[in-house]
Every structure is written in C-alpha cells, then in structure tokens.
C-alpha cells in the first residue's frame, strides 16, 4: 500500500514540475536545435566557360532583371550613370558552350538578361558581375549557386532557391523569397520583406530615421534576436514576434518555415 502512495506522489510531483515547466519555460523552440541539416548549393566545377559584357546608359532604364543558374551573382551599386553587366556562361562541354549565349531584352524601361535555350539535357550555368547606378530597381532570380550583394542603394528583389545569399550593405527596399539556402543580410537600412523555407537567416539591421515595425512569424523553426520585439508562441509550432523601434515607419516582415531566423538591430 505504501509503495502505491509513494508512486502516486512521485507522479503527481513530476506532473506539477511538468506544468510549471510548460507554463514558465515552455518556449524551448527558441533554443538552438541539436541537429542542423542544410542542403547548400551544389558547387559544380565548370568544364568550359566564356564571358559576355553589356554596357548600357542608365538614362534609358529604371530596372534591371537577371536570371541565373549554378553560378555566382555579384551585385554592387555606385554613383555612376552606367549599367555594366558581365555574364559568365559555363557548360560541361565546349561544343555546348558554343551554342549558348546571354539574351538581352528590353521591355519598357526594364532591361533583362537570361541564358538562351541550350541543347536539351545539357547542364549549363549563368552567373553575373553587375555594377548599377544608385537608386535602380534590380531583380535577381537565381538557382543553385550564390548571390552576393555589396553596398547597394535602391530597390532589390531577390528570388533564390538552393542558393546562398550574402548581402552586406543596403540602403533601400529589399524583398527576398528564398528556399533551401543560407541567408546572411548585414547592414540593412530600409524596409524588408523576407519569405523563406528550409533556410538559416541572419538579419542585421542598422538604425534608421522613423524606425522599424517588426512583424516576424516563424513556423516549425527557431527565432532568435536582439531587436525591440516580443517573442510569443502560438499554436502549430508558430513563433510570432512583433514590436517597434522609433516610430515604426519601415516594415520588417519575415515569414519563415522550417528554418532558423536571427534578427538584430544595431544603433
């Protein structure tokens, strides 16, 4: 009889501890998970490659669109009035490479570059080194590679998958949609919209006049950060963070599924 009582007392005691734990320390999902799995971009060594260069005056265009694959995209803006695009095409064989070229097209005030249709079944890649004038709108669509943006001023739209994304210094509006890859955004000054799945994201914001309005939702993932927002847990493994710095003029909207998101704001 005594052992029954002791067993029940121990179970009740553990149940109380469990309730206490759930009530006060329940948000364990904000801790780093012990297993880290990420499929980064496949780094394919090009067997053959060639370069095409395009130089255009900015006065005719307000936006630039790039569509790449398997290569590296390097983007930078500067105080000039010239759009300079170096396209690097690669293929597995010289014969395949000869039949490939970068197609330049103009639609209204938008300039765009993408790879021409190559032989069916042959793998080919396209990367870019781009210098644009300050204030332009640039859209990059890239798969299987990496995208590096440095000291950019303007409007940036990035759509990537299986690619690593490194942004170091942006003044302007940023919109990113990314799946399967690491995202590292540093020295961001301006509104941000980030949608990602199966990605690890680090977002480093710089203080700005008017401040930020944070709206972060992480589903089935981890949310960390040193920013003026309150993290709360909702049902369905959802973490929600909302808050403001200053007057909250510039929106920072982040939606993440199955990923780790870290947001920080530097003064």
């Amino acid at each position, binding site marked *: 009889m005594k052992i*029954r009582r002791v*067993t029940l007392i121990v179970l009740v005691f*553990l149940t109380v501890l*469990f309730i206490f734990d759930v009530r006060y320390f329940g948000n364990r999902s904000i*801790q*780093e998970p012990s*297993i880290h*799995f*990420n499929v*980064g971009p496949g780094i394919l060594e090009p067997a053959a490659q060639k370069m095409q260069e395009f130089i255009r005056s900015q006065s005719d265009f307000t936006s630039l669109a790039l569509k790449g694959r398997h290569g590296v995209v390097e983007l930078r803006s500067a105080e000039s009035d010239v759009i300079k695009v170096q396209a690097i095409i690669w293929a597995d064989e010289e014969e395949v490479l000869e039949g490939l070229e970068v197609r330049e097209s103009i639609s209204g005030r938008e300039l765009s570059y993408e790879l021409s249709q190559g032989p069916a079944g042959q793998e080919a890649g396209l990367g870019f080194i781009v210098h644009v004038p300050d204030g332009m709108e640039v859209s990059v669509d890239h798969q299987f590679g990496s995208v590096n943006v440095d000291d950019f001023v303007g409007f940036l739209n990035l759509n990537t998958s299986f690619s690593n994304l490194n942004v170091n210094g942006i003044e302007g509006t940023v919109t990113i949609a990314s799946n399967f890859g690491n995202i590292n955004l540093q020295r961001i000054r301006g509104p941000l919209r980030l949608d990602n799945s199966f990605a690890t994201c680090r977002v480093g914001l710089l203080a700005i006049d008017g401040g930020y309005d944070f709206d972060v939702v992480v589903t089935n993932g981890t949310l960390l950060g040193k920013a003026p927002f309150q993290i709360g847990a909702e049902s369905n493994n959802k973490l929600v963070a909302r808050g403001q710095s200053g007057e909250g003029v510039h929106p920072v909207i982040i939606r993440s599924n199955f990923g780790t998101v870290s947001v920080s704001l530097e003064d």
Partner: protein
Amino acid sequence: MTRFFRLLRKDLQASLLPLGFLSGIALIVMLFTRVRISMGSWPNEAALAAVSLPLVFLPLWLLWQSFQTLRIEWREDTVYTLLVLPLPGWKVMLAKLAAICLEYTILLAVTAVGALIFFAPQVQQAMENLPSLLWVIRNFSLVYLFSLGVLASMVIFVQLAFVVSKMVGRVQGLIAIWTLFLSSWFVEVLGALMEPLFRWIPVLSLDRLFRLDELRAGIVFKLNLASEIGSWLGILALFVLTGVLFEHFVEVSG
C-alpha cells in the same frame, strides 16, 4: 551470464510466431508488388512503397511488442519465476530489450533480402545514382545503428511505463501512458539542463561520418552532442530505475 541468455532465448522463442508472420507478410507484399510491376499494372516506384511499408510499420510493432512481452509475464503468471531468478532486475529488462533489438535486426534483414530478391533491377538502378557499394553498406550500417539506438530508447520508456503502472492499483493503462509522456519530458529537460556541462564536446559532423560530400557537395549535417548527452544519461538512469523498481517494488498481483 547463461541465465541471461536463457532469458533472452525464452523471449525470442515467445516472439517466433509473430516474427515469422510479419516476415511472411513483408515478403508476400514485396512479391505481390513485384508481380504487379512485371505485369505493368503498377509503376516502378511501387517497389519503394513495398519496401518502405514494413520499415514504417516495424518500429510501431516493436514498441507494442516491448509492452506485450512484459504484459504476458503478468498474464501467464511467469513474473513470479522472473522475480525469484537470481538475476538483477536490470538484466531481466536488458534481456527483453536485447530480444526486441534482435527482432528488429531480423525483420530489417528480411526486408533487405526481400528487396534484393524481388526488386533487383530497381536496386541496381538506385545503386547507379549512389557513389559506391562500400558507401551504401557503410551508410546503411550507420543508419541501422542510429535507428537501433532510437528504438532502444523508446523501449526503455515503454518498460518504465509498464513497471510503474504495475506499482499502482488502478487505472494502470492511464498511468502507463502518463509515465511514458513524463519520462520523455524528463529526459528532454535533463538534456537541456546538462547542456552547459558538455559544451566542450565538439559538434559531430554527420556529413563527414556519412560521407555526404560523395553524394552531393554542400550538404551540412551536424549534431550538437552537448544537448544530447544529458538526455542519453537520463535514458540510462531510467533503465537502471526500471530494473530497481521491477526487482524490489513491483506488485505481482496488480
């Protein structure tokens, strides 16, 4: 040691019939799928489903089996014999755990052999996309060991839940389920609390262990052992606790 192996043999003999039945079912499903694929009624991908089916069902059945082997001891009053054996409680539990692990290994081997016999062309096709035969054998062995570890942990939880349920007079089923839940919560918390003690242990690069770079460049697969070791120690402690409770405190008439 001989007594331990006798106990293990007894548990294996008790599982012989369901083991044979399940192996037969798995092989029949694979044979049936093979025939349908040959007739052109089903696509080649059905082979994957036929092999996966037993693998999905297997852990669930084994967890039930770990509960059932203990339940039978009570139902058939053989628990008296177990308790008077000159064997510590943990060895009794270890024998049952080892029996479950052996059953798992046998059923896995049957599934693998069945896949090789019935789906040889599909296996050969899959092998062409994998780095080498050695790579496949090595990784399958590692996955088997990892899955065995996970299964053993689950069996330990089930054993504790059953033994604790036999220490109370009523609502034993509910107590067993609640104990199962509490014990898994307990080891999770223990892992989190002990994590700072083991931060000196380097992160285990599973991508290197599994040689995933031979499959595709850029795969990162890491396991932070610091937060796991506390949980593993907790599971070990629960196993010892189950043995002690079974040996000294369990109510046979429950």
